[in-house]
């Protein structure tokens, strides 16, 4: 068993239970302690009165004592202090109190059942004082009538108010802490979903939560800065390598044009195409970087994705036909959305070219644009060999390619940046891209919120 619960809720429950127990115990304790303190004080008082009346070790004269008691009874308020002198048989001789029972020697507690006028709770001391006489001194333990009941009410009201205040405070505290934790979690989740610009809101009061939010935000800034630096380095490398590579490529292209002999020209053309592939790889990296930086959102316009998809299907159709494949526009709901038309064209071209390049002759490629409540769902499905579930995550990564027996990298392999580019485009539109099993074949689903 754990000594303490770890959750805020568990801790609150345990704290509340402890608090209530301790408060109740303290209440009862105080209640009974004060009651017994009052009894001790009253006992001391009646003993001292009794001693004053008949000092210990003396045998009083009956007539004198009776006289004395009568005077005292006349002077004193009967509710405050009572005196009763009785004989050996319990018959009263003199006093201001009448009893309905015989009292034992020593101290006893009196209550309402004793029917003593003006006394609801009290104490009595009964002494043998010689000569067969007994002296009883009475005193109230309640300064006013029904004092105990009133005290009980005061205790319940007082402690009840404390409990309520603490309960309210605890709930308010829990709400405050919960809200702050939610804010941090919310920010973290937005960042996980790719919105790196999110920051924890700052209450602005300079308190612990403010400081924590500040530290968290500074950490995010630092991470962003580090990511930016890494991106800059890879962008710089791409830029720097592109220039000499482009020069090489241009030399090869010029050579290709001027080469007189066909075999030489073939070889030069091969070299030029390889340089083109490399340039394409760098271009794709830089393009992904540009998309990820998000500035293209400034150029978003409203248009119909279904119309665009129909156009791109028409565009890719001849390539598919030459490879013995068929591309069908299966569904085209009107799908107006706000986005980058050029990038979404690129997305569609990539989705379709992907299907065309990675499937054999005879494959059917189906395209659908469906309008849902809060998103436009673009799906390209083929009935080709598909991608095993174990490799789907891998191919989404940069330079990740499908490893398939009997298929070399070159033809149809691509540079492994197609899917990351598609994902970057979809993410720029705050959507999601998923690879699914079409059994048989592959289904690429781009879900774009509207």
């Amino acid at each position: 068993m754990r000594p303490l619960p770890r959750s805020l809720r568990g801790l609150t429950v345990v704290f509340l239970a402890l608090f209530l127990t301790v408060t109740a115990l303290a209440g009862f304790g105080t209640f009974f302690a004060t009651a017994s303190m009052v009894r001790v004080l009253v006992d001391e008082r009646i003993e001292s009165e009794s001693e004053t009346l008949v000092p210990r070790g003396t045998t009083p004269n009956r007539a004198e004592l009776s006289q004395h008691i009568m005077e005292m009874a006349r002077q004193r308020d009967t509710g405050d202090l009572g005196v009763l002198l009785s004989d050996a048989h319990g018959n009263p001789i003199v006093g201001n109190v009448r009893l309905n029972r015989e009292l034992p020697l020593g101290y006893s507690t009196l209550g309402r059942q004793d029917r003593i006028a003006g006394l609801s709770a009290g104490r009595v001391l009964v002494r043998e004082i010689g000569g067969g006489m007994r002296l009883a001194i009475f005193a109230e333990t309640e300064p006013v009538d029904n004092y105990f009941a009133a005290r009980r009410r005061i205790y319940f009201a007082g402690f009840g108010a404390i409990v309520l205040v603490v309960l309210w405070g605890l709930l308010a505290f829990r709400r405050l802490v919960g809200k702050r934790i939610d804010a941090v979690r919310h920010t973290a989740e937005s960042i996980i979903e790719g919105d790196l610009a999110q920051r924890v809101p700052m209450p602005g009061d300079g308190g612990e939560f403010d400081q924590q939010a500040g530290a968290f935000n500074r950490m995010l800034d630092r991470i962003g800065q580090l990511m930016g630096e890494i991106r800059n380095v890879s962008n710089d490398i791409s830029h720097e390598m592109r220039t000499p590579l482009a020069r090489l490529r241009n030399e090869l292209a010029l050579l290709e044009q001027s080469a007189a002999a066909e075999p030489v020209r073939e070889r030069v053309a091969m070299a030029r195409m390889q340089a083109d592939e490399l340039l394409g790889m760098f271009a794709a990296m830089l393009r992904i970087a540009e998309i990820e930086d998000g500035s293209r959102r400034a150029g978003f316009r409203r248009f119909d994705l279904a119309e665009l998809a129909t156009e791109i299907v028409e565009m890719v159709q001849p390539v598919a036909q030459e490879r013995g494949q068929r591309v069908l526009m299966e569904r085209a709901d009107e799908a107006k959305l706000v986005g980058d038309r050029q990038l979404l064209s690129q997305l569609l071209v990539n989705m379709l070219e992907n299907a065309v390049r990675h499937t054999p002759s005879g494959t059917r490629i189906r395209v659908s644009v469906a309008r849902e409540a809060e998103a436009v769902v673009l799906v390209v499905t083929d009935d080709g060999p598909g991608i095993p579930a174990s490799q789907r995550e891998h191919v989404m990564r940069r330079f990740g390619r499908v490893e398939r027996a009997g298929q070399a990298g070159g033809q149809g392999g691509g540079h492994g940046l197609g899917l990351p580019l598609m994902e970057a485009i979809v993410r720029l539109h705050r959507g999601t891209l998923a690879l699914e099993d079409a059994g048989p074949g592959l289904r690429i689903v781009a879900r774009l919120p509207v």
Partner: protein
Amino acid sequence: MERNFTGHVRMSLQILLVEDDSHLRRQLTEQLGHFEHEVQPVGDGQEALSLLGRRPFDAVVLDWMLPTMDGVTLLREMRGQGMTMPVLMLTALGQTLDKVEGLEAGADDYVVKPVDPLELNARLNALVRARRTTEQPSDTIAAGDIVISPSRLMVWRGGQPLALSQTEFRLLLALARDAGEVVTRPMLIERIWGQDFETTTNIVDAHIRQLRVKLLQHGDDPIATVRGMGYVLRA
């Protein structure tokens, strides 16, 4: 089927090249020189502006990122002074917004760095030709025995009407506008689909093959493939 494009009629253009990177400036001057253009290289905007005031140029190749006077300022200044010659701007990859800004400021075309001289040459030729032909607007465009009517969406070859799909029509029109000149694949993609994107399959070539099949019904093949570059429609 293939034809070395040096066999075509060549335009010799007076080109002003504004580029601050001396290495690239030298390379582009030399490479455009291969195409028999006369290139005047300058390193900054002020110098370019004073040169433009003194002598005529057929076209300007303008780097967008210049140290003292940037490309957009120079271009606005030029257009403000009534200079209407075509301007082709050079932009860095990943600067889409610059590209948009440039086209809005009055640039006629753009090439993304690193610059492919063949692509640059093809685009410069196309720009200058377009300027010259718009001076005499005509309803039909002719290239060899092919006649195209853009307004009526009709095509004839040797007097026979051809039934082309919309894409085939746009493709033929794109080639015919620069008949006798190389039109590169990126240029074709832009002209047919109105925007540029990267392709990993031979989309343009497949459309050309479809078009060729229809054109061959009424004669020989009027389209020549230029290796590593694009296509030429016989003028």
